[in-house]
């Protein structure tokens, strides 16, 4: 009850502050000195959290099973392609059973908290922690125990992904126009994504990308490619060299 009240109030206030502004921008951070060894890294893809639906005029989220299923398939395909192009091997993490399931759940849960902290206290300009505000600092970790979830996969890194899409309905788009006359900023649709890479040897977060205004319609293969490209923007070593590589 409290959370719902506060969440409502925060969203409302964020709207009032305007959708444009630092908060809506993409933000990413990299651990200083981190370099992803091109072509040799094995990356474990943790089951992404994907949610797709429509947003009614009143802002209610209406989940859509077909869209979500499509998005899952498209994003998975686009991810594999993007990573392979970079010469990295992507292993899709299997759903563990028994005690391993607890470890996976623990780390997925912890990742959310860590990423949340990065966004709140390093990316968001209004509320930064002084110790994180210093130039060149990107000091975040999940602890070395995280290697547990990648046991027997031979992976060096784990990629966590979260993606939520709310497509604005016609009603909402119209509301947006009217609201603009009143200088109230109303977002039509929300497209949020975040991607983070963990070094499994140390548990350190070597890279995080968070974007609250993503593009690409994930219901289509092309859109998913664009979305993945954005999610993985500034992915370590992602600038392909100018050598004539085979497509």
């Amino acid at each position, binding site marked *: 009850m*409290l959370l719902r009240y506060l969440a409502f109030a925060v969203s409302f206030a964020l709207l009032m502050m305007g959708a444009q502004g630092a908060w809506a921008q993409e933000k990413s951070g990299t651990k200083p000195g981190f370099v992803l060894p091109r072509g040799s890294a094995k990356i474990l893809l943790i089951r992404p959290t994907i949610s797709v639906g429509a947003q009614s005029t009143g802002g209610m989220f209406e989940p859509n099973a077909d869209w979500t299923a499509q998005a899952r398939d498209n994003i998975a395909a686009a991810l594999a392609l993007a990573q392979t192009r970079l010469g990295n091997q992507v292993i899709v993490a299997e759903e563990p059973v028994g005690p391993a399931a607890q470890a996976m759940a623990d780390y997925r849960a*912890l990742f*959310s908290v860590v990423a949340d902290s990065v966004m709140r206290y390093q990316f968001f300009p209004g509320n930064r922690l002084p110790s994180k505000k210093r130039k060149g600092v990107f000091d975040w970790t999940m602890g070395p125990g995280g290697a547990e979830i990648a046991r027997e996969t031979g992976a060096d890194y784990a990629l966590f992904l979260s993606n939520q899409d709310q497509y604005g309905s016609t009603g909402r788009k119209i509301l947006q126009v009217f609201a603009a006359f009143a200088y109230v900023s109303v977002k039509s649709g929300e497209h949020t994504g975040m991607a983070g890479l963990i070094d499994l040897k140390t548990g350190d977060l070597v890279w995080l990308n968070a974007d609250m205004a993503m593009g690409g319609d994930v219901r289509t293969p092309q859109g998913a490619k664009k979305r993945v490209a954005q999610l993985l923007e500034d992915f370590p070593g992602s600038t392909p060299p100018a050598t004539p590589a085979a497509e």
Partner: protein
Amino acid sequence: MKRTLWLGAILLATAQPALASNTLIAAQAPVAVAKSPMTVTPDREWNKMGARPGRNSESWTIDGDGLNEVTFYGGIEPDRTLFREVNKHSTPLPRFSSTMLLTDIPALFEASYRIALNTPVMKIDTVAPTTFLGHKAVQFAFTYSRVDEEVRRRGDAVAAIIDGKLFMITFDAPDVFYYQRDMAAYRAIVARAVIAR
């Protein structure tokens, strides 16, 4: 981790000019906390959160209050709650009382967390006597989860009743990795906590 996370977000979002931003706490320098005569000297750098959990309390963190949080309660007076009411009308928090024994403090703390975080899965694991601020004190350990996440959280607390007021320092972190790593920093704070006369 407590409502400071949400409290901070809402206060910030409504852009109240009186809200202080987060400030840096230097290592090895004594500093008074929670607007009280209690003074601590941390062994490493911390960040002090701009948003306070309540009138006589303050929170510090290293990586963000969801990952490691130390909270100071500086002289909670009788008939006061530990932190701000969540919904005074339908879910009022319990209040400290001048007749309370040290053994009542863990129960006060547990009920306060259960109600404020709306979680039934909070447990006091151990209770032991200790000394704190030069007085007889109680030390207790606890585990809980917040409603909106599945992360298991662990914590530790030490509390004394001095001149009829409650002084307490608590530590909160996810059970996975962070609790183990940052316990030492919390213990260092408690060990060097003093109260001015």
